[in-house]
């Protein structure tokens, strides 16, 4: 079956690929192209409820899944939005309420286990040779490297064996003028460079990066208003700001703008000049953050904004300095959907697993920005609902069948993007992340705030409350750089000396 169904653009690879609103989504059910499946993909992985399953002991549902709650607030007016929402609730509810657990094996609490091995092999399969239909991702291949290396690491897999192969593969992507393009002969791009640098970090291969050239190239995308363009001549948005500051910080490049940086002509001297102010302008009347000033508030951009500010300084300093925190907290809290329990990216849009990271990851950062932890909820320190997110990811987003992988929602196919960010989201939900003031002494010229994070696993009581078995815990994910904690520490040490 051809991978790209031209008659159904919504489902086709290139359409999904081009939805860059979420940084860049990439469909990657690669093995489909090799296997013969029928139209509906109904082979071994159709997720048909197992008929012999004993009808479940009536479980007590959490409050947001009880019938009385689900019955609340059904406005009569039908619109495109409400129809789409109704459809998604209908496909999720049987899975959420465990009426339909498919063929999954269940944990102590009756929820499915994390299918760790299947998801890992799904990710590994993305690195095999891809058929010609994948031409449409020719400009986004670095993402595939990042999603697989990061996703595998979060699942507890060793990826260092990919080091030599990855270094060789990305060498032609590095441009003499600095940065990485999406492929050989392509212009350097913030997204491709971010993804490549992070993938290299994950395998311990950062040494192949030409740091001095990178510094020059980053100077060429810094804008006089404080923000960053994605590439020379391309759009300016908040992804650029986050990607550029991540690259700069991990590689310990000088904060000072290179002499040939165009923004110097407008009086800027540092990469950080006007940056916090520019990020602040992206907060909208809703309280959330847009990709660029005046656009619509969006979960992926909220993460980019908070992570970027958390590179500039301690979250408790930089976030309240540039953003209206209560408005943002209210906006973020409202993104968790009832009854699904995952996050939506925008107001009145649908739940989607990738926001488990984009919005889920915001909580680590914003909770660290609140002045006084004692004002956080009575029985804990969280403002959000971890148990609901875990349930959504575990029951609705795991692809059944031997191929594994994780997906946006039950009616979609798994891909590397959603697998990586679902597992990262699971990590935000399962683990605790703390910012420790002045843990790292600031070193010459380097922004060190982002290196001050520590992580800890949930307590036994929390695992019971969130219905998680120990064997289903995933690795810690660095709240700013979205890499394993050890990888970030290794990068910090590797370039501690600075210079070129």
């Amino acid at each position: 079956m051809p991978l790209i169904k031209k008659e159904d653009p919504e489902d086709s690879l290139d359409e999904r690929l081009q939805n860059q609103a979420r940084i860049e989504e990439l469909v990657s059910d690669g093995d489909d192209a090799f296997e013969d499946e029928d139209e509906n993909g109904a082979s071994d992985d159709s997720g048909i409820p197992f008929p012999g399953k004993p009808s479940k002991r009536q479980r007590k549902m959490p409050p947001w899944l009880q019938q009385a709650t689900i019955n609340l607030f059904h406005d009569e007016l039908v619109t495109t939005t409400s129809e789409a929402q109704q459809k998604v609730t209908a496909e999720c509810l049987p899975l959420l309420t465990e009426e339909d657990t498919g063929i999954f094996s269940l944990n102590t609490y009756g929820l499915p286990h994390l299918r760790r091995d299947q998801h890992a092999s799904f990710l590994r399969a993305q690195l095999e040779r891809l058929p010609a239909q994948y031409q449409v991702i020719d400009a986004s291949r670095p993402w595939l490297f990042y999603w697989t290396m990061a996703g595998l690491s979060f699942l507890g897999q060793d990826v260092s064996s990919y080091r030599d192969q990855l270094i060789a593969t990305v060498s032609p992507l590095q441009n003499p003028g600095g940065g990485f393009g999406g492929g050989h002969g392509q212009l350097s791009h913030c997204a491709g460079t971010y993804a490549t640098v992070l993938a290299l970090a994950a395998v311990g291969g950062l040494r192949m990066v030409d740091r001095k050239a990178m510094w020059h190239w980053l100077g060429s995308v810094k804008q006089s208003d404080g923000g960053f363009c994605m590439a020379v001549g391309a759009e300016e948005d908040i992804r650029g700001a986050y990607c550029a500051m991540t690259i700069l910080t991990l590689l310990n490049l000088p904060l000072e703008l290179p002499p040939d940086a165009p923004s110097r002509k407008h009086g800027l001297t540092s990469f950080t000049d006007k940056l916090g102010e520019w990020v602040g302008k992206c907060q909208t009347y809703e309280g959330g953050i847009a990709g660029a000033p005046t656009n619509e508030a969006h979960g992926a951009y909220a993460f980019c904004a908070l992570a970027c500010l958390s590179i500039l300084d301690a979250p408790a300093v930089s976030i309240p300095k540039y953003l209206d925190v209560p408005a943002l907290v209210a906006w973020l809290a409202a993104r968790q959907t009832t009854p699904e329990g995952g996050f939506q990216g925008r107001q009145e849009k649908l739940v989607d697993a990738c926001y488990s990271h984009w919005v889920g990851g915001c909580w680590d950062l914003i909770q660290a920005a609140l002045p006084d932890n004692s004002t956080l909820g009575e029985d804990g320190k969280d403002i959000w609902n971890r148990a609901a997110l875990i349930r959504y990811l575990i029951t609705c987003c795991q692809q059944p069948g031997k191929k594994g992988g994780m997906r946006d929602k039950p009616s979609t196919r798994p891909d590397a993007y959603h697998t990586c960010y679902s597992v990262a989201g699971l990590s935000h939900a399962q683990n605790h992340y703390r910012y420790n003031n002045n843990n790292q002494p600031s070193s010459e010229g380097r922004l060190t705030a982002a290196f001050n994070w520590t992580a800890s696993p949930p307590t036994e009581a929390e695992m019971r409350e969130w219905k998680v078995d120990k064997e289903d815990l995933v690795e810690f994910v660095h709240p700013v750089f979205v890499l394993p904690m050890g990888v970030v520490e290794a990068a910090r040490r590797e370039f501690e000396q600075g210079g070129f």
Partner: protein
Amino acid sequence: MGKYSDDPAWADVTPLPTDEGGPNPLAAIAYSEEYEETMSYLRAAMAANEFSPRVLDLTEDLIDMNPAHYTVWLYRAHCLFAINSDLKEELDWLNETALQHQKNYQIWHHRMLILDKLDSCEGEGEFVERMFEKDAKNYHVWSYRQWLVKRFALWENGELEFTEKLIEKDVRNNSAWNHRWYVINGREGEGVRGITDPRIREREVDFAEVAVAKAPQNQSPWSYLRGIARKGGMPLSSLKDFVSQYASLEQPDEVRSSHALDMMAEILAEEDNGKQQAGAALDMLAQKYDPIRKNYWEYRKGMLGLPSAAA
């Protein structure tokens, strides 16, 4: 052998084939011969900094095969301007391509570059509107629309009516609400007052209240109202009567919108001696009307600074 290698017009160019970086590249794409060849000629053209009509044709070929190829788009734009190509013609070609690849970011950025140079936006509003028929929440198209409004000063060219039309079609289209906010407030920097102008504020409050009545659990108009209060210097308490139609402590079983109850809690918290009641509203949200956000509502209650934190 191939379209370009067989073409005498390209005989002077030595193609640069793809460097895979070694014998075992990761996630290597088995390019079609056509794509591989065209890319090889593009690399050669870019290396030589060639801007010519034949390069334009080449980029068109590549965009047909891979519309997400940002390098090709950027190079094409560069080329169009360098050789003074007919930009109207470019727009015609873009119109066809856009309908096929609506979710592509590059195409909208490219369109922006072209229109900026053309210095005319004739027919553009209608074109964008047609795009919304396929997906009325497309982020790139909305961001393009904002650019159009600003670049060609279309603030008062029916733009407000346009948002009204889309909101009428789907009152839950938050992108249309955001655009409405932009149309009204996007010129504050130039001294044109938006919701800080009392007359405009009143009109917009009415507009949002009518929308709430259609579907009280739709969050978009509630956020809009809150935005007006926050940015427009209007006390939330002026909405109390309106909000109490949807949520009131006197009728705790008749709440018609969790967003109304949330706003009521905020209104009460601002009143003298209202904190206790605000706490009660937040309890209702945590326990009955919005239990998924129990932690958030408790956090908000904690912020009230009530004497005894224990509920």
